[in-house]
């Protein structure tokens, strides 16, 4: 009897492990983090205090994501009702030009509650950084906030490979990843 019960429990555990959130067709999801949504549209109100004089390309980077053939709908809102907030400041010689944080309800869930994009003036406003380099960082941080991981070796704005700055807006790879995550 004990053996039979153990077998049944083991089978249940196995079934539980197999039944989970839908998996993406691609491996470049970030730990399965995911925005809950009530319909097809992934509506993400974005509150931005990014200095448009210093970052004139920022609104283009946001629009780039929204214009992809995906459910993503980043759109600017004021200081209430937002889900994603973007800021810029001189964070110093940290080694990173952009920083994306996502918050989940609890450590053991994947549902994102809110997210941030930080743009580091120390690098992004330094000589040698033009529109393309800045848009690459912005595209990547906005992609992280959707739940995307880095995509080394791919023609992708989610890649940090040397030379990847040429991919300064969402490419087919990101579109496929997003549509796999949010069908």
């Amino acid at each position, binding site marked *: 009897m004990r053996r039979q*019960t153990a077998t049944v429990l083991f089978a249940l555990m196995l079934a539980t492990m197999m039944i989970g959130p839908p998996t993406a067709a691609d491996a470049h999801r970030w730990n399965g983090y995911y925005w809950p949504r009530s319909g097809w549209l992934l509506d993400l109100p974005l509150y931005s205090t990014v200095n448009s004089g210093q970052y004139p390309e920022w609104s283009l980077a946001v629009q780039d994501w929204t214009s992809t053939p995906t459910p993503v709908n980043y759109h600017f809102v004021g200081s209430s009702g937002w889900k994603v907030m973007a*800021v810029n400041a001189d964070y110093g010689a940290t*080694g990173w030009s952009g920083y994306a944080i996502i918050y989940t309800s609890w450590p053991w869930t994947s549902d994102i509650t809110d997210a941030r994009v930080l743009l580091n003036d120390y690098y992004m406003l330094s000589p040698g950084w033009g529109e393309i380099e800045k848009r690459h960082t912005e595209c990547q941080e906005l992609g992280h906030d959707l739940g995307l991981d880095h995509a080394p070796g791919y023609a992708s704005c989610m890649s940090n490979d040397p030379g990847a700055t040429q991919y300064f807006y969402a490419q087919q790879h990101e579109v496929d990843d997003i549509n796999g995550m949010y069908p």
Partner: protein
Amino acid sequence: MSRRSWIVTLGLLASALVALVITSLAMAASPPPQSGPPTAQQHGNAKVTWVENYTTMDAAVKSADVVIHGQVLAVSPGRSLDAGGGATVPFTNITVRVLGHLKGSPDPVGTLTIEQTGGDSPRGPVIVIEDPPYKVGETYLWLLRKVPAGHRIISPDGRFHIESGKLIPVKQGGASEQWRGKTLTGVQVEVARSLVS
């Protein structure tokens, strides 16, 4: 199998299925709509766009200001920056006892501080996935950049855990894989070669 066993087994199965359904419903439930930042203790995860990226460890060595191996003496909270809407970017200071240097001269000799992005914040821990938290007593080899706060890793390609005398890159994939499994002596030869080429 007796009738009693079947009843017990079916009872367990039904109970487990009910628990599974309840758990799935709870997990699928959307959080309440946001109106600004939530205030509850949460869990933060961070990804960053690294400024320095390398295809070879030779290039990484040439770029680094300092290459050392050492032991983590202390892990303590560092500065904290505003990330907007009640969120912060925490930093952690890692005090390292230098056991040997392969490039550059650590200052002060004996110990140095590495500033790491990530750490505890009012909304819970924030971890940069490719540069995870340190533990006191661990030994590493680092490729470092000198910065006003002390030092930082050049990128995740510049951090190797030393286990049983062998290097294990902290980052999965990329240039640092070229040093996976090498001994300190082996890496010393590689660094010396990079510095003269």
